[in-house]
């Protein structure tokens, strides 16, 4: 069995790494799951992962 635990900073608490990374990404409005998946894939390919040493997976929550 595998459990997934998410620990996130509370709202209004400064998250320097999150802020720096989001600054390097584009904030784009999306309407469909497909669009969200396409944009997330592009973000991974262009910045978030390094293909030499990392792999990624994407979960879209509606």
């Amino acid at each position, binding site marked *: 069995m595998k459990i997934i635990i998410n620990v996130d900073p509370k709202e209004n608490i400064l998250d320097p790494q999150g802020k*720096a990374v989001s600054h390097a990404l584009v904030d784009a409005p999306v309407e469909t799951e497909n669009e969200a998946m396409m944009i997330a894939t592009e973000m991974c390919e262009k910045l978030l992962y390094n293909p*030499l040493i990392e792999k990624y997976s994407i979960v879209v929550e509606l």
Partner: protein
Amino acid sequence: MKTFGVVIFPGSNCDLDALYSVEKVILQKAVPLWHKCEDLPPLDWIIIPGGFSYGDYLRPGAIASRSPIMKSIKAFADRGGIVIGICNGFQILVETNMLPGVLLRNESTRFISKWITLKVENARTPFTKLFKKEQIINLPIAHKDGNYFVSYETLKALQAKKQIVFSYTDNPNGSIWNIAGLTNEQGNVLGMMPHPERAIDAQLGSDDGTTIFRSILKYVKEHK
């Protein structure tokens, strides 16, 4: 008089040492370049200095590699311009795909700051032409992510094309094949973890860094 650009990102911390090395040691003009700059002034050579650009968030060099100035630097290098990335500058060059591979966390997982010895593997590059092949030189390192890694196939290609320029005589960080510095295939872009800009005065430990800067100056003078 030649003009050298020194790129400054938020978090760069070796920029002043690099500017000092150019202006006071090899007596050339040095221009600081802010990371938002897209139109570069006429330059003979660009230094991407060490530091912790964007706090090393995500991966060292990853966010800096997507900044506006890197597009211009890539175009400068594509035209044959000389680019040297030192420490964080090396990490930025691999994240920009201007050099192959990646710099992982040191094998010890610790930050290492000390003097080390290097072997000059290739003395026929713009950066090393004033050294002799296999000369042993002294430079300091100061990094936590200097463990160079690349696929076996790429390593073979790097060796065949003599792109490996410096190797550690006593590997401090786990780098594959003791690699401390390498060039791109064309030979005009160098990335290295040790700090030449911190080795510019024999009375302060070593002036082997000066020889790297003098080599580039000689190359630039010969090719203009």
